[in-house]
């Protein structure tokens, strides 16, 4: 098994004074394609913020065996001000601003890199558009381009499948499967009904974290994990279903609705 890129060891974290994650251990390895699932408010975004170094844990340790800049990040769409006066070109360029490094790069070089990456995600003709004029799919492509332009070793995506049509979603997963040859991928989704068949493992986050080393989860395992999630994949793959289950720390009243 390959060396871990990022390692979380017994990490607990809180947000606005409330414990959101407790005793979470997880390793991200170079060829990972991990689906992170769990209910809203279960701590998925907090987990990402910890890995990105945007949030400090209350206890436990996070070890990065890669540079902080080696993690690419695609935040939730709701995070942006869509009226902000910025063009697609500049959004993607911000992905290259490691440290203050852009100040030292030649204009012709970063222009070429932005144009190349825009071609690869299929929005080459939109580079001068303000983001306010993009469709949901075009915005996600732009944000994906920004996340991968610096060739990160780990790519973290927070709900990349919101506000996009089904056609783009399938294309997104194909692009990600291709990227996965060069980088580890962590993809968060609350809408696990459509999570990709390309994922190789599943992390179920609901205050605690349960890691499933395959994308198949048996009924027996579910009984132990207690994650109130239904997982169904579409397309030419065998359907997998995770029935309602419960985390240890959850009160028994919240299930069985």
């Amino acid at each position: 098994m390959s060396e871990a890129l990022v390692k979380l060891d017994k990490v607990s974290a809180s947000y606005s004074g409330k414990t959101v994650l407790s005793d979470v251990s997880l390793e991200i390895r170079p060829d990972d394609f991990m689906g992170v699932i769990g209910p809203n408010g279960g701590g998925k975004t907090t987990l990402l913020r910890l890995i990105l170094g945007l949030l400090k844990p209350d206890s436990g340790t996070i070890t990065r065996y890669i540079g902080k800049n080696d993690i690419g990040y695609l935040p939730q769409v709701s995070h942006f001000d869509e009226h902000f006066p910025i063009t697609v070109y500049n959004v993607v360029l911000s992905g290259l601003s490691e440290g203050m490094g852009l100040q030292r790069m030649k204009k012709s070089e970063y222009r070429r890199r932005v144009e190349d990456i825009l071609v690869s995600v299929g929005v080459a003709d939109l580079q001068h558009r303000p983001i306010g004029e993009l469709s949901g799919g075009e915005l996600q492509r732009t944000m994906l381009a920004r996340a991968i332009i610096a060739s990160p070793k780990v790519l973290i995506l927070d709900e990349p499948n919101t506000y996009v049509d089904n056609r783009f979603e399938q294309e997104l997963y194909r692009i990600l499967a291709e990227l996965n040859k060069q980088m580890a991928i962590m993809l968060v989704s609350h809408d696990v009904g459509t999570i990709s068949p390309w994922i190789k493992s599943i992390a179920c986050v609901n205050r605690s974290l349960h890691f499933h080393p395959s994308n198949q989860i048996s009924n027996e395992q579910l009984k132990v994990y207690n994650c109130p999630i239904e997982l169904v994949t579409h397309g030419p793959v065998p359907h997998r279903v995770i029935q309602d289950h419960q985390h240890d720390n959850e009160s028994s009243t919240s299930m069985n609705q």
Partner: protein
Amino acid sequence: MDLIGLFEYEFFRNAFSAAFLMSVSCGLVGTYIVARRMVFISGGITHASFGGVGISYYFGWAPMGGAAVFALIAAITTEHLTRKKLIRNDSLIAVMWSLGMAIGIIFIYLTPGYSPNLMSFLFGSIITVTLTDLALMLALTLVVALVFTIFYRIILFVSFDEQFARTRGIPVMLVNYMLIILVALTIVLSIRVAGIILVLSLLTIPQNTANLFTSNFGRILVWSVIIGFIGALIGLFTSYYLNIPSGATIIFSLVILYLVARGVRTLIRSRNPEPAIQ
């Protein structure tokens, strides 16, 4: 008297220079404020500075110095407490806003005698700008122009998505504090031109006018400066010929420019309708 003849007067040359310097600093700083939706914060900083004016009157200090100190305290406190999430941002701004005004009013009341320049602090007076004011404006404008030229992209990236900028290792806090300090100082120096009550419009109307035609941050920066300067000049001349207050006339000109620009845009759009964006 013709336009050129006006330049023989020192007060008019000073006013012209002040209009230019103010257009540059307000044009650049205002673009940041508008893009980041910090207009209300800027209003809070502006009005808080009145507390400094009042205290300076009472102790006989230079009012601009007191205003600058109060504006900086308000700016840094807002930035700091908002980040700590100790209080809701808009409530905090309202407190700063009214507390500054309250302190100002109390100290001016306590100051014996009539305060002749008080009105110029509330409503501005570009005609009475002194060489000292100009020197300070020049220094600030140079700093603002330099910062926005060198760090243009960094400012843009941090403003658009602070969290992502942090993942790229950009010193986000440093950028935020540096900019809020420039915002506070720009506001204080612009009070000479438009006054506490009106200064906010110098930081927002040119930007919104430019934004009618472009959503490119860099172009809004440049066009805000140009539009601000045109508006200031129209206001300056109009106020001279009609003998009405300069600050208010400049604001009025800026609003007229905005409305004209809106009209022009509607005309352009109706002639070449843009293809619908999917």
